[in-house]
C-alpha cells in the first residue's frame, strides 16, 4: 500500500515538475520531422523510380475474353509486359443450397503491356488472375526500341536491312551491341536525289503477336536489351533517362521531358522577382522611413500582413479580371489591333502570371524588408545625414543597401512560395502544352504575352487530368521531384547571394 502511494506521488511530482512538457514538445518535433522525412522519401523514391529501367518480361496468359480489341480471340496470348501491382481479391461463391462457402481468394496482378492500335504502339493496363498466367520468362534478346518521338517499342530483333545489305541473328545482335546500327542520315541535298534507291536502313522487330514491325533507323533513338543489363548498365540508363527527361520538350502520350516546363517555371519566377522587388522595397521604405507612425500607417501595415493570407486563386481572378480582360484588352486595341480578334495581351500569359505571383508574394517582401529596415541602427541614418546627405541619399544610398540581406531573405521566401503556387496560374496562362517558345533568337526575344508551361501545373495535370492514370501518375511524381529540386536550387542561389552580401558588408542587421 505504502509503495503504491509512493509511486503515485512520484508520478504526481513528475507531472507537476513540467518535465512532461519537455517530452510532449519533443514528441511533436519528432512527428513533424518524421512527416518531412516521409514526404521527401516518397517524392524522391517515386520520382526516381520513374527513371529506373524496369525489365519487360514475356508473359504467356490464358485468356477467355479479349485482352484488347486487336487480339479478339480467346486462347493463350503472349504479352510483353511489366507487373505493376498485386492484390488479393476475395471471391464469394455459393453452394447449391445457397449457403455461402468459405471465402476463397484469388491473387490478381496488374500488368502494363504493349498493344498496337493501327500500327501505333500504346500501353494498356489490365488485371489478370494469377491462375491465368501460364509462363513468365525474361528473354535476353527482348529489345526496347526508343523512337525519336519518345515512344518505345518492344520486340525481338529479326532483321536489319540497308539497301542490299542484310543482317540477321548473331550478326544483328553484335550490330546492336556495337551501336553501329545508326546509318549516317543523308544530308538534305543528297536525300532528294537518292532517297529512292538508298532508302533509309530499316530494323524489323518481331512483336508479341508474332508479326514483324519495321522501323526506319533514322526514327530510332536508342536500342536496349532491357533484360540483359548489369547494374552498371542500368545505372547509366537511369542517369540517361533523367537527363532525357530534363533536356527534352513534351511529346505525345506522356513521353518526352519537361524542359519546356522548367523554362517556363524559371522564367516565371525571374519575371516575378523583377516585378516584385522594386514594388515591395519601395513600399516598405515608404512605410518605414517616410510615413511616420500614424494610425493610417499602422492600419496599412496590418492590411499588408493580412494580404499574405489571401488564397492564391483570388489573385488569379483579380489579375484575370483587371489586367487580362481590362488592361490587356486595352493594350491590344491600342498596339496590336492588327492581330485582333486574336488577343495578344488580352489572354493569359507569362507576364500576367508573374504579375499575379508578384502580388501574391508582395506582403512577404514588404514585411521582410520593413523588419530589415527596423534593424538598421538610427546612428547609421544620423551618420549619413551629418555628412550632408539628403534624406533620400541617406535612405537609398545607405539604409537600403545595409538592409539588402533582409530584402533577399524576403525574396527567398517569396520564391519558395511562388515556385510551387499553381492555383492562380490556372487562370492566367499556364497550359498543358504549348508549341510557342517564350524565348526567341530575334527581337523582342522574350515573349511575355505567350502562354507557358509550368512544373506545378504539369503535376496537377498528370495527377488529376489525365485519361491514363497508370501512365501519368509516375510522371506526376517525377515532375514533383524536379519541381522540388528546382525550388531548392533557386533558394540555394538566393542564399549564396545573401551570404555574399553579408560577407561584403560583414554585418548582420538581419
Amino acid at each position: 500500500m505504502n509503495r503504491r502511494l509512493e509511486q503515485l506521488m512520484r508520478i504526481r511530482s513528475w507531472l507537476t515538475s513540467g518535465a512532461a512538457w519537455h517530452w510532449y514538445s519533443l514528441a511533436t518535433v519528432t512527428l513533424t520531422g518524421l512527416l518531412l522525412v516521409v514526404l521527401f522519401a516518397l517524392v524522391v523514391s517515386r520520382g526516381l523510380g520513374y527513371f529506373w529501367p524496369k525489365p519487360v518480361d514475356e508473359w504467356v496468359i490464358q485468356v477467355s475474353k479479349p485482352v484488347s480489341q486487336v487480339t479478339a480471340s480467346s486462347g493463350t496470348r503472349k504479352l510483353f509486359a511489366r507487373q505493376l501491382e498485386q492484390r488479393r481479391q476475395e471471391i464469394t461463391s455459393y453452394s447449391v443450397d445457397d449457403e455461402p462457402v468459405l471465402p476463397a481468394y484469388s491473387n490478381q496482378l496488374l500488368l502494363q503491356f504493349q498493344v498496337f492500335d493501327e500500327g501505333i504502339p500504346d500501353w494498356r493496363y489490365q488485371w489478370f488472375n494469377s491462375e491465368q498466367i501460364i509462363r513468365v520468362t525474361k528473354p535476353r534478346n527482348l529489345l526496347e526500341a526508343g523512337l525519336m518521338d519518345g515512344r518505345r517499342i518492344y520486340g525481338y530483333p529479326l532483321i536489319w536491312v540497308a539497301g542490299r545489305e542484310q543482317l540477321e541473328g548473331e550478326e544483328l545482335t553484335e550490330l546492336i551491341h556495337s551501336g553501329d546500327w545508326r546509318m549516317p542520315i543523308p544530308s538534305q541535298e543528297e536525300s532528294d536525289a537518292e532517297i529512292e534507291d538508298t532508302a533509309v536502313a530499316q530494323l524489323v522487330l518481331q512483336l508479341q503477336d508474332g508479326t514483324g514491325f519495321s522501323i526506319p533507323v533514322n526514327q530510332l533513338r536508342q536500342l536496349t536489351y532491357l533484360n540483359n543489363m548489369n547494374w552498371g548498365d542500368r545505372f547509366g540508363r537511369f542517369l540517361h533517362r533523367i537527363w532525357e527527361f530534363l533536356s527534352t520538350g513534351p511529346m505525345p502520350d506522356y513521353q518526352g521531358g519537361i524542359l519546356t516546363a522548367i523554362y517556363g517555371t524559371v522564367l516565371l519566377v525571374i519575371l516575378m522577382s523583377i516585378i516584385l522587388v522594386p514594388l515591395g522595397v519601395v513600399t516598405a521604405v515608404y512605410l518605414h522611413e517616410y510615413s511616420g507612425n500614424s494610425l493610417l500607417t499602422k492600419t496599412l501595415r496590418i492590411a499588408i500582413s493580412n494580404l499574405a493570407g489571401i488564397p492564391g486563386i483570388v489573385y488569379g481572378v483579380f489579375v484575370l479580371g483587371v489586367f487580362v480582360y481590362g488592361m490587356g484588352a486595352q493594350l491590344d486595341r491600342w498596339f496590336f489591333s492588327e492581330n485582333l480578334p486574336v488577343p495578344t495581351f488580352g489572354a493569359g500569359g507569362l507576364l500576367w502570371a508573374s504579375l499575379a505571383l508578384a502580388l501574391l508574394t508582395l506582403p512577404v517582401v514588404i514585411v521582410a524588408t520593413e523588419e530589415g529596415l527596423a534593424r538598421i541602427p538610427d546612428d547609421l541614418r544620423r551618420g549619413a545625414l551629418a555628412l550632408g546627405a539628403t534624406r533620400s541619399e541617406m535612405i537609398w544610398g545607405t539604409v537600403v543597401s545595409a538592409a539588402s540581406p533582409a530584402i533577399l531573405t524576403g525574396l527567398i521566401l517569396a520564391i519558395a512560395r511562388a515556385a510551387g503556387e499553381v492555383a492562380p496560374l490556372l487562370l492566367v496562362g499556364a497550359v498543358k502544352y504549348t508549341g510557342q517558345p517564350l524565348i526567341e533568337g530575334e527581337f523582342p526575344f522574350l515573349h511575355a504575352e505567350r502562354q507557358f508551361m509550368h512544373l506545378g501545373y504539369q503535376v496537377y495535370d498528370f495527377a488529376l487530368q489525365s485519361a491514363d492514370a497508370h501512365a501519368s501518375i509516375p510522371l506526376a511524381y517525377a515532375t514533383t521531384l524536379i519541381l522540388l529540386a528546382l525550388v531548392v536550387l533557386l533558394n540555394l542561389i538566393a542564399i549564396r547571394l545573401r551570404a555574399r552580401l553579408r560577407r561584403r558588408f560583414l554585418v548582420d542587421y538581419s
Partner: protein
Amino acid sequence: MDAVSSSQSSLLEQPPEMAAMVRGLHVYYGQRLALDNISLDVREKQVTALIGPSGCGKSTLLRCFNRLNDLIDDCHVQGQVRLFNRNIYHPDEDIVALRRQVGMVFQRPNPFPKSIFDNVAYGVRLQNKLPARELRETVRWSLKAAALWDEVKNRLDESALQLSSGQQQRLVIARALAVKPKVLLLDEPASNLDPISMLKLEELINELKANYTIIIVTHNMQQAARVSDYTAFIDQGRLIEMTDTRSLFTHPQQKQTEDYITGRYG
C-alpha cells in the same frame, strides 16, 4: 556679402576669434524644456568641452550646431545659433551645406556597411564627382589626418566593420574630415573605447585642434580636463558655468559645478 548672408546678419556682431555663438537658445521636446536660455561662445580652433550629468541636455546642445535635432519630430528650437556669423536656424539656411561645414562623431562608432575607402569617400561623393585620383588623395589625406592611414592603407577595400571599435571611431572622424568641415562635434566619442584607444583618440583631438574648432560632449571629467581648452558645465538644461578649463576645474565659481567635479553631485 550676398543677399542671404546680409539678411541673416543682425545687431549681434561676431568677433573673428569666435567660431560659434549661441544666444538665448531654448529647446523643447514637445512640452518639456530641454535647454533653457543657453548663451555661450565657442572659440575658433580651440576645444570646447560640454560636461554635465546624464540627461542635462549637453547632447541636445551639441546637435543644435548641425541641426540634427530637426530629425526629432516634436523638437522645437528658439533663439539663435550663429556659426561663422550666420544664424543657422534662419529659415533660408541650407541644412545640407551646413552639415558639410560641421562634421559629427557619435557615441557609438557608426561606419557604414561599406569598405573603408567607400566610408571615407561617402561625403565627398555626395558633394561632387571628383576624378578618381583626387578622390583617392582626399581619402588618403583624411585617413592620415585621423591617424588611421598606417593601420588600414593595405586593406582599403575591406569592410569597415572589420576594424576594432577604436579604429572605427577614427575612421568615422576621417569620414567627417574628408568633406573639409570647419567644426567637429564629438558626442562622447570615447565612451565605448578601451583605455588605449581612448588615449589615441585624445591625442588625435589635440592634433586636430590646430585646424578645426572642436566641441566635445563627455561625461568623463578627466578627459574634459585633458583635451579641452574651455569647458561648459550644464545642469538640467541650464548653462551653470563656462570658462577656460583650468579655472573651471581648479576654481569653480558655482557651488553646483564644484559639487559635480568633485563627485558630490546628486
